[in-house]
């Protein structure tokens, strides 16, 4: 066999073997990887809307995904909003729960962030920063309270505490939430929240 023929044979053989090997690996892991991603979303939904029994996607585009959630008696619990935007350093991805009439934020959770450890990364702190988001009135855009106050009772109904020393990270979270709230209301007005479909997950 001459050289170029041998080169082609070897490369083709290596390509075919590795290709078929990888397709087996791909098939074996595909389902599990998809399941992991779904599980992550479901966990986040039950975190921001604890009485959720079933949930399904009602809207999705590049920057926003909305899930409608129902409890065990099939009564609407509210909507879980999955949104992302730029933070201090990189993308922040978060999810919050809101009641069906869009008046109160039930809870907020941060899913992905790369803020400064020890400063901006405190946006993931469930005992301080995130706690002050529970039950905020969101009929108007939310605003930031700085310097932060000790107890949630001292905040105005639509105020949230800033993190001391990490105002920008706090502002970025606020911006993502406010922007998505605005879009949420628009989407609802246009009647694009197709809540009658019940392809429950």
């Amino acid at each position: 066999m001459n050289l170029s023929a041998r080169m082609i044979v070897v490369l083709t053989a290596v390509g075919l073997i590795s290709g078929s090997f990888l397709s087996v690996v791909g098939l074996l892991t595909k389902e599990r990887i998809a399941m992991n991603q779904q599980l992550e979303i479901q966990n986040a939904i039950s975190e921001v809307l604890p009485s959720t029994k079933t949930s399904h996607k009602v809207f999705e585009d590049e920057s926003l995904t909305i899930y409608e959630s129902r409890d065990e008696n099939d009564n609407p619990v509210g909507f879980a909003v999955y949104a992302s935007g730029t933070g201090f350093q990189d993308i922040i991805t978060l999810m919050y729960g809101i009641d069906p009439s869009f008046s109160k934020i039930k809870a907020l959770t941060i899913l992905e962030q790369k803020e400064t450890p020890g400063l901006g990364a405190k946006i993931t702190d469930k005992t301080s920063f995130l706690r002050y988001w529970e039950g905020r009135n969101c009929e108007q855009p939310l605003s930031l309270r700085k310097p932060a106050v000790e107890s949630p009772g001292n905040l105005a109904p639509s105020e949230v505490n800033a993190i001391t020393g990490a105002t920008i990270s706090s502002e970025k979270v606020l911006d993502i939430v406010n922007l998505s709230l605005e879009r949420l209301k628009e989407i609802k007005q246009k009647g694009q929240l197709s809540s009658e479909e019940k392809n429950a997950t």
Partner: protein
Amino acid sequence: MDLLTLFVAAILVNNFVLYYFLGICPFLGVSKKIDAAFSMGMAVTFVMTLTAVASWMINHWILIPFGLDYLQIVSFILVIASLVQLVEMFIRKMSPPLYQALGIYLPLITTNCAIMGLALLAALKNYDFIKTVVFGVGSGLGFTLAIVLMSGIREQLDLADVPEPLKGAGIALIVAGIMALAFSGFSGMIK
């Protein structure tokens, strides 16, 4: 995120070398002279832009429609390797002066993790075509900025009295650390 933000962020805030730690090998290896560093940076920017286009097409026209996402790593690396070869042959034919300037850096680029990193990050962040290209150009210029600044500092460093064991890579890394610290001052500037 609009395109200008993405572009500026790729150069300053999320700099490929100083934030993502990609392309460290050429960053340490080819940063002793400003001219060489600039040529390397330009070669990387050029190949990065082409890679951004090629990897987006492969990903969105072949891998995703046919559900072949498990072939992503293999196909990206093969595309990059052949792209570098093609660019080298093309430049040698079309523009000998350009080949003189960039030629020797091109083969080094295949194993430059910044190029592979660009293809993977753009796919991971789900950028559309335009964003991928802007991200590619911005990241390339960010790399150029970092490596040129580094070479300027290192030219001065040759005259300084550096402790014997830190000479070479040690002091270069420490300087890179201080540069990373300076660049972290750009964080938060993108609105």
